[in-house]
Each structure stands twice: as structure tokens, then as C-alpha cells.
């Protein structure tokens, strides 16, 4: 066990009590709504918020025991990518990346040489002399990641790594980030409120609500068996693996989906049950994915209904009880399902 933590602290109205374990080489996503205590947990791991009780052990070393030990952030082997990246505005991209090495006593020339290499690795050496304000959102994210990784931390923390990006940059960065993260040798913990980001980037999810862990497991496990309405709402998305050829994805389970972004190779597709609409007859219109199917399960979730349909592609749709009644759907009913290509998120698996 490379990271073993039990985080207990109170800040304002937040009462955090969360256990977190992660192996070296594993990416764990802490997923939860705003105010659930995700960022506080991350700050505790970084040493920016001391524990009231519990412990943090990283690679055998105790960083915080809630009492006498609390290793200062500058003495922890922890790298952080902050939510809005926080590149130092007065330093060039190169000096930002070199900052950690210089702070840890490397000479200016050594630090610059390493920073040049790190920037070249993420394809940004040509903007080495640019100030952060001149960088695009995607470039800023890559510089922030290179800066956090320059000191080769045993634990990498990412706070909402995609939240500061616009929708278009997000899709690209999400794909790149997954590859970059898999090359990071230590433990990776990321905090997000976006189930798509969690599905795309993490091996395992820890779902936090109101300062407590409500469920852990792989994305597939959790979305198959959500333990609460809240979790179902959060991760109750359709996750289908397949092979992409341009904008067409041939699914491993049979059938195919048309998606908006062209990719190739093994991919995962994710879409929310809300994106699936159900129709009595064959719908005509903009959705690229229309299929005849049969209702195989109906489950009431608060004020909504989740309808499992089996057809060329197994889907879960979310509709209102009124719509269900209007379509007179029961188990076994024939039904048409439609899904817009733009509602599907694709990432390499």
C-alpha cells in the first residue's frame, strides 16, 4: 500500500472523515458534489490543511498523524496540479517548471535543463519563454502538470484538472491527460465532480458525499450497482467499450455507435441515461443513433425512471414517470431508442 490515509478534519461546516488507499501506479478519482470535502481532502494530503485526527502514510513515511507529526508541504514528496493551475504569472513557463527543482536546491542551469526536457516531453518547448498569460488553456494545463511532476513526487494530486478548460479543450486534454497520467510512476489522486472525467482518467473511484465515503470501486462496478440514488445519479451513466474507426465505434458487446469525435483503436464511450430518448415509433431527426429495442427492466429512482433496454446495443434511458405512462412501457415492450452523437464522450481505453 503506497498511500494509506485516514483523513479527519473539520473546517467550517464541513466534517470530513474519509479513508483513502492507493497503490503505486494507480489513479484514484475522488468524486463528489461541490462542498463534499474533496478539495479539503486533497489539501490535507498536500500538507496545506493539518489533520484533526487520523493519519497519512506515503511510501511508509508518516506525513501526518493528527497529533505530533505534520510534515510541512515543502518537505513532502507530493506534486499538486491546482484547479486553475496557479502558474506563477511573473515567471516564464520554463521558470515555472524549474521552480520545484530550484526550490529543492538544484542549480539554475540543472533546473533549466530538466525543465526544457519536461516541456519538450509535453510538446511545449517552443513556449518555454512565454509568460502564463500568453498560454492557451490546454498549454497551461500541460505546463502545470510538468511543473508538478518535475520533482518526481511519490504522490500526484490533481484538483478538478479539467474544470478550468472550455468544452473543446476539455475533450482533447482529457485524452492526453490519461496517457500522461499512466506514465507517472507514483500514486495519482484526482478530485472531480464530473463522472466523465473520473471514468476517463481513473482506475478506481471513491465517491464522497457530505464528508463521508459512500461507495468505492471501479467505474463499471459502481455504475452497475449504485448504492444510493445520489451515486446512481452521479455515475449512473452508460459505459460501453469498443473499437473506433473514425466517428464509428464498433462495440465489443455487439452493435455500433456513431460519435462526434473521430478517433481510432480501443475506446470507451460514455453517455448519460438522460441523453437516451425513448419513442413508440421510429423517430426521424438529428440523432445519429436510432435503434429498435425491447424494455428489459424498469427501476424507479426518485422522481425519474431508469429504463433498461436491450437491442443491438444495451442501453439505460432515464425518463419521467409521465413519459413512461404515456408510452405504456412495461417489461418486454418494444421501443425505439435514440441517442445524439454529440452526447457521447469518447476516450481511449
Amino acid at each position, binding site marked *: 500500500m503506497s498511500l494509506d490515509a485516514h483523513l479527519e478534519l473539520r473546517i467550517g461546516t464541513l466534517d470530513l472523515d474519509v479513508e483513502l488507499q492507493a497503490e503505486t501506479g494507480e489513479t484514484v478519482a475522488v468524486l463528489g458534489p461541490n462542498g463534499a470535502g474533496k478539495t479539503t481532502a486533497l489539501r490535507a494530503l*498536500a*500538507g*496545506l490543511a493539518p489533520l484533526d485526527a487520523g493519519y497519512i502514510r506515503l511510501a511508509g513515511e508518516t506525513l501526518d498523524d493528527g497529533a505530533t507529526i505534520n510534515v*510541512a*508541504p*515543502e*518537505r*513532502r514528496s*507530493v*506534486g*499538486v496540479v*491546482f484547479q*486553475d*493551475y*496557479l*502558474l*506563477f*504569472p*511573473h*515567471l516564464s513557463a520554463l521558470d515555472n517548471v524549474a*521552480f*520545484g527543482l530550484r*526550490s*529543492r536546491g538544484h542549480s539554475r542551469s540543472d533546473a533549466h535543463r530538466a525543465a526544457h526536457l519536461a516541456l519538450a516531453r509535453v510538446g511545449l518547448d517552443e513556449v518555454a519563454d512565454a509568460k*502564463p*498569460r500568453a498560454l492557451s488553456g490546454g498549454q497551461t494545463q500541460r505546463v502545470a502538470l510538468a*511543473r*508538478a511532476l518535475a*520533482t518526481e513526487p511519490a504522490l500526484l494530486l490533481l484538483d478538478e484538472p479539467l474544470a478550468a478548460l472550455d468544452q473543446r479543450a476539455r475533450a482533447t486534454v482529457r485524452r492526453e491527460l490519461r496517457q500522461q497520467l499512466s506514465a507517472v510512476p507514483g500514486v495519482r489522486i484526482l478530485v472531480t465532480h464530473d463522472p466523465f472525467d473520473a471514468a476517463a482518467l481513473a482506475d478506481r473511484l471513491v465517491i464522497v458525499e457530505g464528508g463521508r465515503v459512500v461507495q468505492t470501486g471501479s467505474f463499471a462496478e459502481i455504475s452497475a450497482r449504485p448504492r444510493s440514488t445520489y451515486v446512481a445519479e452521479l455515475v449512473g451513466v452508460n459505459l460501453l467499450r469498443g473499437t473506433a474507426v473514425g466517428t464509428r465505434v464498433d462495440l465489443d458487446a455487439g452493435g455500433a455507435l456513431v460519435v462526434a469525435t473521430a478517433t481510432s483503436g480501443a475506446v470507451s464511450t460514455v453517455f448519460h441515461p438522460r441523453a437516451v430518448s425513448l419513442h413508440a415509433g421510429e423517430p426521424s431527426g438529428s440523432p445519429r443513433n436510432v435503434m429498435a429495442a425491447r424494455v428489459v427492466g424498469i427501476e424507479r429512482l426518485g422522481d425519474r425512471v431508469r429504463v433498461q433496454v436491450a437491442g443491438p446495443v444495451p442501453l439505460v434511458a432515464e425518463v419521467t414517470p409521465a413519459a413512461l405512462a404515456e408510452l405504456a412501457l412495461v417489461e418486454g415492450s418494444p421501443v425505439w431508442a435514440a441517442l445524439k452523437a454529440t452526447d457521447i464522450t469518447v476516450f481511449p481505453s
Partner: protein
Amino acid sequence: MHDDASRPPSAGPSGTVTRSAHRAHRARGTRPVPWPWFAVAGITFAFLVLPLVGLLGQVPWSTLGSDLSTTEATSALRLSLVCSVWAAALAVCFGVPLAWVLARVEFPGRSVLRALVLLPMVLPPVVGGVGLFYALGRDGLVGRYLYEWFDIQLTFSTAGAVIAETFVALPFLVITVEAALRSMDRRYEEAAATLGATPWTVTRRVTLPMILPGLVAGTALAWARALGEFGATITFAGNVAGRTQTTPLAVYLLLESRPEVAIGLSVVLLAVCIGVLALLRDRWFGVG
């Protein structure tokens, strides 16, 4: 205000939104201004500008060069430059740590302490000079030991003029730097700490560079205030030509005997003040 200038760019989005919303609101607010306001505003403006016009009208432009190269003028100008630069430097060295403590450390009585620090801004400078005399003068509270133990006498010395100027200039530096420190996004300091920077490295490589606009503005204000200092200097350090007779003191003294030199020196002080205003325009008053 200057905190806009020292706000980090990534804090931009929220700041930009509120600022432009504010501006839009102001642009919409086109309710007519009552006409007497225009009349009074015109009188007020004339009242503020008239002395400058009066001064400039008296300037003997043709002999200005020779008036300013008289011994009285050059020695006063040189002394003013030396004293005000020393005062600004001392204000930075001693004011920045004080601003830091006021901005970053919470302790009981902080607001009282802040009020005391700002007191010299509103205190009549003469009163400040009297206070300095009884504190640091030869028989003063601390001054007697300076004299007895170290043989230092501040009254009637250039060092005394520097001390008097520093006393009145410090609050300008402290208030500006403290505001810059308060408006700075402290998460940058946390980011630096997670990168392995010790508190001292964070101060040197992150905090100070990020508050630099505020520090420059504060230094310029403190320097300008020191340059114009009159009351505290003449009360505490006296009026000794070449040692404590700075330009404002020389202006006052020469207005009777050599008015053309006094006017020439006044024009120099006016030009310097306009220069400082121009330098601070963007940072202190906001563009436009």
C-alpha cells in the same frame, strides 16, 4: 485602485465580470446631474488649479537655468535628493515587514496598531517634528542614550532630516504594501510550498514579485511625500544650509530674499510630483 494591478491574472475571470458589470451599470446611470453641481465643480477645480497657474505665471523662464544653478538651489536640491532617497529606502526596509505583519498575522489590537501606523498621514507634520524632538532629540526619551552611548546627535544633522522624512513617508508605504498583500491570491504561495519552497523562498520568489506593482507604487508615494516634507524636518532637524535645509525649507526661506530662486525650486518640485502622478496613474488611480 492598485489592487487591480497586483491581482494575479488567473483571478481575472471573476474580477473582469464584476468590473465590467459595474461599468455597464455606470454607463446606464445617465440620470441628469443638477446644474448647480456644474457651477460648484467648476469653482472647485479652478481653486485647485489656480495656484499652479499663479506659480507658473511667475516663473522667470529665461533665467531659470542660472537661478537653479545658484549655490542655495543646488545644495538644497542635492540634499533633498539624498534625504528623500534615504527616507524612501528606509521606509521600504522597515515598512515592508510591518505591512507583512499587519496583513498576515492576526492578533488582538491589530486595528488599533494599524490606526497608529497611519497616524503620521493625518498628524500635522509640526506635531510629528515636536514628537521626534522629545523622542530622538539630544535630551529625548531614546535620543539621550544615542548621544551618551554612541555620540549620535540627530537634531541639526542630515540624518535627522532623513528620520523626519521617513516618519511622514512610512505610512504611505505601509498602507500600499499591506493592501497589495491582502489582495494577493495566497494560493500561489501554497502552490510554491507544494513545489518544495521554504517560507523564505516563497517570500522571495513568489510573494514579493507578485506584489511588486504595489511595492513600486508605495515607494513612489513615500518618496514624493519625503521630498515635500517641511514641518517635521524644520521642527526636528532645524534649518541648517547644506545639512538639513531641503528644497521645501529653501523655498520658504528664499521667498523673501531671492523669490526667483524660490519659484524655480517650486517648479522643480511641481514637475517631480507630476512625474510621480504619471508613473502611478495606471497602478494607483486605474487607467483613464
